[in-house]
């Protein structure tokens, strides 16, 4: 008698696990496992932004993953800009330091589109100065920077930093964020 109970119990366990084994095995056999990574690669293969120095601009320090730094150095109202690749102009109550930089966007192979839209946003809220790119003053709200930019291309852009004469002497800094989206 006890053996009768043991045997069905073993069989039930094996049978209960079988559908699971079949399901797992079937998912590989029917290519469903391959389908999951494919959808993940779609989500992660995004356009890559690279910010570079422009020939007529100040040197840009480019870091990994699309991050860069641009230092305008010492600037003043009456002496203007001191570093090569910069220019300055005086307004009645402020001065503007201008330079140029390049932005490149590369798209992953097999992208659904060969064009990207790029938006820009000023991340900080420092009121001591204003920043404009290609004449558009940046704010906390995203703004269209480039539309239908071909993947793999780079463009040169003008950066203006306007400093009021009322801004105390010292370091100023801002961060501009760019987001490139593949066009549908």
């Amino acid at each position, binding site marked *: 008698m006890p053996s009768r109970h043991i045997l069905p119990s073993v069989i039930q366990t094996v049978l209960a696990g079988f559908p699971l084994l079949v399901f797992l095995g079937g998912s590989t056999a029917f290519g469903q496992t391959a389908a999951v990574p494919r959808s993940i690669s779609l989500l992660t293969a995004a356009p890559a932004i690279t910010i570079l120095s422009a020939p007529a601009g100040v040197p*840009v320090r480019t870091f990994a*993953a699309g*991050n860069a*730094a641009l230092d305008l*150095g*010492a600037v003043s*109202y009456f002496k203007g800009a001191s570093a090569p690749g910069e220019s300055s102009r005086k307004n009645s109550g402020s001065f503007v330091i201008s330079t140029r930089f390049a932005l490149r966007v590369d798209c992953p192979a097999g*992208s659904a589109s060969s064009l990207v839209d790029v938006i820009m946003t000023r991340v900080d809220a420092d009121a001591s100065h204003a920043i404009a790119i290609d004449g558009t003053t940046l704010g906390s709200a995203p703004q269209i920077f480039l539309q239908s930019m071909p993947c793999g291309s780079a463009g040169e852009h003008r950066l203006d930093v306007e400093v009021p004469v009322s801004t105390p002497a*010292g370091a100023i*800094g801002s961060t501009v964020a760019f987001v490139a989206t593949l066009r549908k």
Partner: protein
Amino acid sequence: MKKAILLTSALSAFVLIGAANAQVAGSGTMGVTATVQGSILLTFVTDPSGLAVTGTTTSAASLPFGSVQMFGGTVPANVTKTVNGLLSFDLTTPFDVRVDLANSASATYILTAVLATADPVNVWTLAASNLSASGTPTNMNATGAYATPTSYALKLHIPATAAAGLITNSIGFTATAN
């Protein structure tokens, strides 16, 4: 088992729809830094009642008195000639100095002046202070107001014994924020 398959299918469809609508975006950031320095600007301006300054509103100007003589002759407009008996004569004219400030909390400035080249014959006086080419620059104003032209009278004292000819010199001005 049927219910389980249906549930699985529904989830798969949801994932695929999600992938199809996803915005594939890449991002980058650019840090922008600068060091703002306080700065000060000194300019010379023609005084309303003074000799016209060549290069007015700039930091390098000149006061051309032209040809003058102790006795007779003509005196340039807005120049006062004072003949001191037979010993000497003075030429006096006002001109303005304007100092502007940016990116600083300074309220006033100090203005000093120094003669570029020693003049052993003539005496150069600015706002009643004799200028020298050596030693400490002459303090013209200890609490100058920014953005306001301030008038200073330049007097050139020429002895009768001085030889005829060109008299030229430069006066260096320095404005320092208080």
